[in-house]
């Protein structure tokens, strides 16, 4: 079985998405809290606290500079954790996937539904966060509204990468590896809290070539600044290609794990 076999999906992918949506709605308040509160905490600590000591960065206030990074990081966290810890629990502990594949759904449908739901989580969290940041006057409207559809694409990239890890880890504790070795460095070194240009050149290239968050930050920042440029096409293309590759790869890896 090839790692890049095109999955045969059906409209039933949607049913898996609906299942996860139903659970989400059942615990709505709980789910709203993090994306609502976290930007406030970061903005006060970093934007207004640390920001006192930072004159300005690339010609804007520090709070304005990091506001898009907070949105980008939320996009990353929401889908990454949904499709690692969330999916792993459903797969391994709850046997939810086993129950679903006894019906006309295939395992491909189930994983694709999980990925689309992961991307949706990113979208939902971005939607909750944007008004909070907008209330502080830190983003340009209406440009910033484009972040909402974009967050789905960004979310899909992280969901798919997350699902690859979920497919290969031996147990849930091993998720610590991708979290500390991949997500945390990305959180810090993707042009989030200081410009990429402050880093040594090889690391800049590394970040651009291999860290998806770099591209998400670039696009979200351009939108919150209402300052679009032609390089964004490259960022967008990178994300589209990555999402396609990892979407297909993660489904095949999951098939390898689950179809025995």
């Amino acid at each position, binding site marked *: 079985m090839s790692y890049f076999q095109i999955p045969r999906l059906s409209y039933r992918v949607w049913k898996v998405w609906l299942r996860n949506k*139903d659970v989400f709605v059942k615990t709505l308040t709980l789910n709203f809290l993090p994306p609502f509160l976290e930007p406030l905490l970061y903005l006060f600590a970093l934007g207004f606290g640390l920001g006192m000591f930072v004159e300005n960065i690339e010609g804007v206030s520090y709070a304005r500079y990091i506001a898009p990074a907070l949105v980008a990081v939320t996009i990353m966290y929401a889908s990454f954790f949904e499709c690692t810890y969330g999916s792993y629990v459903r797969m391994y502990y709850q046997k939810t996937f086993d129950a679903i594949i006894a019906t006309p759904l295939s395992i491909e449908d189930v994983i694709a539904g999980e990925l689309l739901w992961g991307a949706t989580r990113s979208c939902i969290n971005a939607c909750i966060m944007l008004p909070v940041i907008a209330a502080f006057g830190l983003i340009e409207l209406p440009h910033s509204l484009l972040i909402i559809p974009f967050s789905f694409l960004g979310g899909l990239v992280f969901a798919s990468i997350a699902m690859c890890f979920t497919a290969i880890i031996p147990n849930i504790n091993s998720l610590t590896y991708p979290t500390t070795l991949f997500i945390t460095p990305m959180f810090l070194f993707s042009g989030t809290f200081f410009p990429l240009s402050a880093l040594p050149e090889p690391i800049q290239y590394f970040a651009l070539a291999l860290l998806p968050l770099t591209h998400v930050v670039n696009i979200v920042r351009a939108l919150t600044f209402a300052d679009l440029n032609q390089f964004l096409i490259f960022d967008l293309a990178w994300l589209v290609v990555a999402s396609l590759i990892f979407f297909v790869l993660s489904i095949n890896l999951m098939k390898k794990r689950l179809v025995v």
Partner: protein
Amino acid sequence: MDIASVIVAERLQKRFGEFIAVDGVSFTVEEGEVFGFLGPNGAGKTTAMKMIQCVSPKNAGRLLVFDMEVDTHPREIKKLMGVVPQENNLDPDFTVYENLLEYSRYFDISRQDAEKIIDELLDFVQLKEKKDTMTEILSGGMKRRLVLARALINHPQMLILDEPTVGLDPQARHLMWDKLKNLKSQGVTIVLTTHYLEEAAYLCDRLVIMDHGRILVEGKPDELIRKYIGTDIVEAENEPVVIACLEKNDARYEVVGDMVQIYTNDPQKTTDHLLKECTLRKITVRSATLEDVFLKLTGRKLRE
């Protein structure tokens, strides 16, 4: 073929690496019957069920369910089938009612129809009062009945049950048996695995006894008992004189620990004979059961 075969398996095989879990089994299940797979732990029952359910691909042989190939028509087959897996996999994120509602969606059942079906099913499995309970706090028997209800949501033509009553108390077990008898009377084909011999004898029209991935025998429960044991078993103490006497009389017997079991179709004659000819101290007579066949064929060694 006059009666339609719901499952046709020919030299069906499943390997896990080098290990052969199901080793070239052939069997057919006819419409409307209750067909059992008996066997000790590790015999390959669950593996066989998973191939029929189209979730575990076979390595060799042929497997038709509802006249369709499992490899090429999994969705169509699964649509017509209900499954009670060995391990309960109810959705802990939902209540009893929601579990059924979610499941109905996977079969493209409209909300309106689903509500009607779910009401009927909750009645059928006697869980109406537990409708809004989270599944985690249900008792073992209730969980099992909910899994049964879930398996019935699409009005399946065939039901596959992998050890449906394992771990249940006698009341819960009998309730499950009642439900299965009821479903059979409605014309549902039932395939079940079990290692409770009493369950198999009570429920199954036909069964196979499996061990080490192979089918040892196939037949109707009472026919198997008749064929491999006889109608009755006479038990006596295992002493050299007894054995010598049995040998002399050409009796069919087996030594089980400190007992000898003598197989017979005429317990009256056998006991009279034994009491007269051999010096027996203590003997008991009882009817032969499927358990005797099972132990005779699969041996008495402990399995994991």
